[in-house]
């Protein structure tokens, strides 16, 4: 109570409690930031490219890169490739087409990016092998949440190499096809995807071992023992108007770097503004810049939901 009172006082009487101090921040160059979203399943590779600013700089705008002055190169063991980067419809998001069979599991891929305004950026990542996920099942109203509401449960098996630590990222989208009422005129089918996992828990032996956020759950096989383990993911189901829906479940094998990046970013967003949190960087495996470069391997399964 005394502490809360003091905290409240310190907020209300800023001048009394605060003093401005001079801290010398070492000179540092602004750097390129690259965040990749690469999956071996897809033939288009997406990047987010931006740049950082010195913390003391005025809050000037961060602008898109001038692509004419930017060189981009991606290289595997025996192939070098410098495809043109394209702007997408969103600022800071770029994409490129990738050569077929460029990403061979186990091989190392290097990426390089240069722009005269910033130090050169490079990163390496090993192409992940697809996860051995199988036996997808879906159970309606399998459990209850803290408020007593029903939770659906998605479960599947992963055949895992117990000798090394592997990392996985699971997300799911529900394909919804709706036919509008004839009274409004037959507008045909409208198809859209909806994030399935509003709240998500990873459960093993009845114990919640991981809590997901933003429609995905991230975990390490250290949470399980043995070669084959069973994953249970619980989430709120959606009302099934016509009783049948298709759920697209994506299971990705991800690199340790990607795992650390997602974890650190998730923690940072979750604890934003919490003064008791240990200060931390968002994990980066980029040389000369910030961000993440990881080539993940994905399998997507379709699961029929029947209520």
């Amino acid at each position, binding site marked *: 109570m005394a*502490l809360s009172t*003091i905290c409240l006082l310190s907020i209300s009487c800023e001048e009394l409690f605060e003093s401005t101090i001079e801290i010398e921040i070492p000179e540092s160059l602004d750097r390129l930031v690259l965040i990749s979203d690469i999956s071996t399943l897809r033939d288009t590779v997406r990047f987010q490219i931006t740049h950082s600013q010195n913390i*003391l700089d005025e809050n000037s705008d961060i602008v898109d890169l001038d692509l004419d002055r930017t060189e981009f190169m991606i290289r595997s063991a025996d192939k070098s490739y410098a495809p043109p980067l394209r702007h997408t419809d969103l600022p*800071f998001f770029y994409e490129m087409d990738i050569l077929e069979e460029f990403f061979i599991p186990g091989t190392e891929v290097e990426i390089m990016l240069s722009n005269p305004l910033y130090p050169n950026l490079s990163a390496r990542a090993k192409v992940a092998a697809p996860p051995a996920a199988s036996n997808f099942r879906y159970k309606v109203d399998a459990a209850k949440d803290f408020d*007593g509401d029903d939770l659906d449960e998605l479960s599947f098996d992963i055949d895992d190499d117990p000798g090394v630590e592997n990392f996985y990222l699971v997300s799911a989208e529900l394909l919804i096809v709706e036919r509008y009422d004839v009274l409004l005129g037959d507008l045909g089918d409208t198809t859209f995807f909806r994030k399935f996992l509003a709240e998500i828990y990873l459960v093993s032996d009845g114990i919640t071992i*991981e809590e997901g956020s933003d429609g995905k759950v991230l975990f390490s096989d250290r949470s399980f023992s043995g070669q084959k383990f069973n994953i249970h993911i619980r989430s709120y189901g959606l009302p099934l108007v016509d009783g049948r829906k298709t759920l697209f479940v994506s299971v990705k094998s991800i690199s340790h770097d990607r795992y650390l990046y997602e974890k650190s970013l998730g923690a*940072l967003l979750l604890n934003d503004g*919490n003064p*008791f949190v240990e200060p931390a960087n968002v994990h980066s495996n980029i040389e000369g810049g910030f961000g993440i470069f990881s080539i993940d391997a994905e399998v997507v399964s379709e699961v029929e939901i029947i209520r």
Partner: protein
Amino acid sequence: MDCHAHLMMHSMKKTLQITGYLSLLLLLLCTRNLGAQNYTISGYITAGETGENLIAASVYDLKHEKGTVTNNYGFFSLTLPKDSAELQVSYIGYEPVVKEIMVDRDIQLNVALTTSIVLDAVEVTATQVDRIQENVQMSQIGVPVEQIKKVPALLGEVDVLKALQLLPGVQSGGEGQTGLYVRGGSPDQNLVLLDGVPVYSVAHVAGLFSVFNADAIKNVSLIKGGFPARYGGRLSSVLEISMKDGNKQEFHGEGSIGLITSKLTLEGPINKGRTSFLISGRRTYIDMLLRPIAKSNAKEEGVGLKPKLHFYDINVKLNHNISDKHRLYYSLYNGSDVFFSRIKEERSSFAGGLDWGNWISAARWNWQISPRIFSNTTLIFSDYAFDSRIEIEEEVGDITTTFKSKYLSGIQDLGAKWDLDFIPNPSQYIRLGFGATRHVYDPGAISFQVQEQNVDLDTLIGNTKTRSTEFYLYAEDEITMGNFKMNIGLHASAFSAEDVFYSSLQPRLNFRYLMNSRWSLKASFNTMTQYINLLATEALSLPTDLWVPSTRSVRPQRAWQAAVGAAKNYNGYEISVEGYYKKMTDVVSLKAGSSFLFGLDNSWEEKITQGEGKTYGGELFLQKKTGKTTGWIGYTLSWNNRTFEEINSGRTFPFKYDRRHDLSIVAIHDFNERVSLTGSWVYGTGNAISIPYQKFNIYRRYADGGYNTNPVEQIRDKNSFRMSNFHRLDLGIRFSKQKKRHLRTWSFGAYNSYFHKNPYFVYASNAGEFDPVTGQYFEQRTKFKEVSLIPFIIPYFSYGFKF
């Protein structure tokens, strides 16, 4: 039998074997004087006025120049040749007693010392064997409780732990906090014992006050290194606090009324000279003052309000001398913080709050088996529990909905230990013992109850309780050979949890060489193992801090420490200089970006990481315990670094409380019996902090095609910047007067006497500033601002009485 059980059996056998050999060796060593015709004088040294056992009182034979000190129960044993002896018994603050005794048989001698009337009349003679240069134990500091009571304190609330923060090698975390950072360790690495029982939560009100009521305490001793073999289970320090036994001669009481708490202690004989009791209570009363105002405000708004806002402590002690050979003690402590309120409206009610606290209990049996052998058997119980509750009831139409949720966490210990002191001759003091503790951890369970028209849910979510057992055996021998004295020992411990078993052999060595009667050189080496960990934020001591066991993936913390030093006694001044180096492995830290605050779940193992800690430095301590002016100067020069593979990209970084310079000056001057002036000044290097140097945005796409922006700041090296240096002056004055029936004391003082804004945390501000010319806000460069918790002077007063 499974593999785990085999491993456990093998390890236990090995431990028993080694300890057995060591015990045998000690017994062989002590047979060397058996041929001579010797007799033993043994007994208890007590305070004459109260009957309290005096700890570390000196018993010295002036004729043969042999001596000993009393143990934690006031017992001594001194074996001398058949001859006359001139026995001097002394203790600081008491008149020394000299007795001429003919030692022609074993003698039981109980001595009651009387308080010295004039403080500076106490002569510190060359016969005291507990003088700093004589003692083989290094890195140990005892501060008399009467001195602690005089040190000025925040809001006048006398605080044992805050007084200890003024000693060299001991640092405070932040302004007003009770946490002890001893030689670079964290607060969970301190073994805090109240009458031999571990105390798991030592703080009230998020660390602003400690749970120890100074009126109920007899003795405080802190060991920072060179740990004797009888202690184990923590890496950085042992803080042993002994409660008063209760006056065996007369009924007495003392108390005080202060700004935030009132205290009352009553003690006296139940059976004069043999059985006594002590009961002491302390309670805050801010809620009693606020309640009528809050109620009246609530009534005006048509709401019923019942706030509860307080903390309290109760200490109870009973002791009974069955005979000269058998004594029984029972100690009980209960303390709790309660923050709870109930709001009632016409058709709804809300009740919610937090409470947390300790229950601690010890039953002890002292048995003087022979004049040279003393045993103590202790049964211990310690329970720390945190409880958070919410109850909501709402009526809508005919339907009543009830929602109840409860979050519980804590730790419970049940254990037993046996300690044996064997004093075969004045040159040897052997200690043997063993103990076992069963820990039960409640790592946070949430229960929900929902009652509605169609729903009746009663769920318990969270991990079930986990259990572990900790065992230890020890043997130590304190041997004197001329000017050379050593304490060698071995502490063997084992820990068994659900699917893990860990064990550890920890050698303990202390050496002392007496250069002359005034000064000595000392050295020590010890290893320590800690099997339980505290999941806590670094910034505050919170009730949600959680004790958890070592597991398959969380290894026990281990440390070794080496220290060298010199100690000198000069005209009543004790001076010690020590240098130390401590290496800790598998210390626990939160992973970057993680927080336990309001986010506890079963994945705690995922949130922590283990690494190394290295801490080294030098300490200077100058203390004056007697005379009109008493006090001390403590200075520490230290380095304190951590290395974690998963933090700061594996690079070594300074610990948050790495403090290059730490200086404390405490002075107490008694002008006469009625007036005393006290002051303390502290200075410390600013805490290490992390400051970002670059910022960028991460953009996240929405399913509808849009995106959001998440600003991210990057730090270059963890804790590579410093807050401003810390310094503060506290002053106090006491006026005492002996009234007809009681002694009354008025205490006045001021905390932070010269209004210094000591930084508590730093934040980056890039808020725009208002331009009065244009009438607009304009952007500005980021500035860093330090926030102080107590930037002003806090005066205090209290009224105390003693009868």
